[in-house]
């Protein structure tokens, strides 16, 4: 899908073992498959169906999304780390596309 922009907000550093908030947004229409076009033909479903966040290869969250998730999915959760490293965020599209972005974080 064209024009899919992932965005992530995390702090630049965090204290070991202390939870902090991670916020993510991705621009995506989340076409539910329940709508019809102007001629009355059903518009095929095309959504982000899975989102994962990993830190240095360890799972933070793994989420299965349904068409009831709003357009431009917003996902917020908490993470905690014991070392500096890298978060990897991945969104899986119905059409097979995979969007990914990574953010490094320091220990405070």
């Amino acid at each position, binding site marked *: 899908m064209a024009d899919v922009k992932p965005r992530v907000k995390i702090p630049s550093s965090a204290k070991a073992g202390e939870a902090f908030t991670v916020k993510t947004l991705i621009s995506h229409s989340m076409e539910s498959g329940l709508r019809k076009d102007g001629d009355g033909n059903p518009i095929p479903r095309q959504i982000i169906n899975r989102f994962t966040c990993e830190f240095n290869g360890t*799972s933070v969250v793994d*989420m299965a999304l*349904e068409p009831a*998730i709003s357009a431009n999915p917003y*996902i917020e959760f*908490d993470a905690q780390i014991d070392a500096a490293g890298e978060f990897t965020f991945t969104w899986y599209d119905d059409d097979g596309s995979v969007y990914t972005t990574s953010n490094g974080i320091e220990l405070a």
Partner: protein
Amino acid sequence: IGAGGIALLAGTPAMASAVEEAIAAFTGGAEIGESGIEINAPEIAENGNVVPIEVSAPGAEEIMVMATGNPSPPVCRVSFGPAAGSSRLSTRIRLAKTQDVLAVARMSDGSFVQTTRAVKVTIGGCGG
């Protein structure tokens, strides 16, 4: 007052059985407790297409969310890994009409808890 919001109220009532079946599939038919899980959501949705919800169940390994009044109730299912800082998720969902949002959590000891929260979806239009 505007006619534009009326479409929000349309849609077929969800089959209660669809919700029950999804819960049974998630729990394997286990008994479900009612404490230790919370849904936070606006009392009245500002826009039925974008309703912020937050589910949290301290100690949960996985949470499933359903919109019991949507034509298709499933919303999402999230599992929390070793690097999660809590068992909490915020997201934004579509609600076809006024209804209960339901969340079920699988705790680390294998037990289940669930809760609901009423969200009103309104046409709106007048103020003081």
